[in-house]
């Protein structure tokens, strides 16, 4: 299975993905991106984070950008 990387960022901060995840195809990679977004937005502590500024950049093993998933739908 190909490995995809899910870098999470806004305009000023970036949380790069070191491990990546094995996904069957782009559809599963998109589902994993949505799961990561849901996990991040459901943390235990209250935040003042503007989630509309955050996105997931899904990249292949060569680190080429495949697609972007915003945290909040536009």
């Amino acid at each position, binding site marked *: 299975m190909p490995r995809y990387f*899910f870098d*999470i960022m806004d305009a000023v*901060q970036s*949380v790069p*993905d*070191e*491990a*990546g*995840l*094995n996904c069957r195809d782009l559809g599963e990679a998109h589902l*994993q991106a949505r*799961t*990561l977004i*849901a*996990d*991040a*937005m*459901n*943390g*235990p*502590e*209250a*935040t*003042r*984070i503007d989630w509309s500024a*955050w996105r997931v950049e899904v990249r292949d093993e060569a680190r080429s950008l495949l697609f972007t998933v915003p945290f909040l739908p536009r």
Partner: protein
Amino acid sequence: MSVTGEEVPADRVVETLEILLRAPPFMRSPKLARFLRFVVEEELAGRGATIKAYTIATQALGRGPDFDPSIDPSVRVEAGRLRRALDEVYAQHAEGLEVRLIVPVGGYRPRFTPLESVSALAEDAPMPEPGTLPPPVPGTRRATVAALTPRGQAAIIALLAAILLVLCIDLGLTLSARMAGSAPTPRELVVRGR
């Protein structure tokens, strides 16, 4: 050794932790490895209640004391990746793992569950004979639908047609026999005529 909340001995949790940390996702990501080791060791040390985004960031992820979890989602993001990495290890590299380690969504405290309880239940279950159906699950209703294939439908139609044909023949014979009983046959007429 202490016993965790799920009745898993702490030494087995430590063994599991060391196996997990040698699995590919954690070998590729020292950050996730430090995150996992920190939350497990804090939980086993009885400090699970103090596992917060701030302590993870400053003690496991190398962030400075100015880390503010209310505006920085780094720990939340890494927690999500940690959950996915654990799922991947248990799905693809589960050899030797006796304890399932999870970090539930909405928190950072790990939980431990013995894996053999799940596998033992599966082993104790009787294997169905080849060609037999498994017993129905209690509490569920199985809808029984008499569905026929087109070939089956054609066979039934042919059978009904054959029955109808036999009935018609029988009716015809009965009627002809009655008619023969009321009217004289040509042979009888011949005999009477002599």
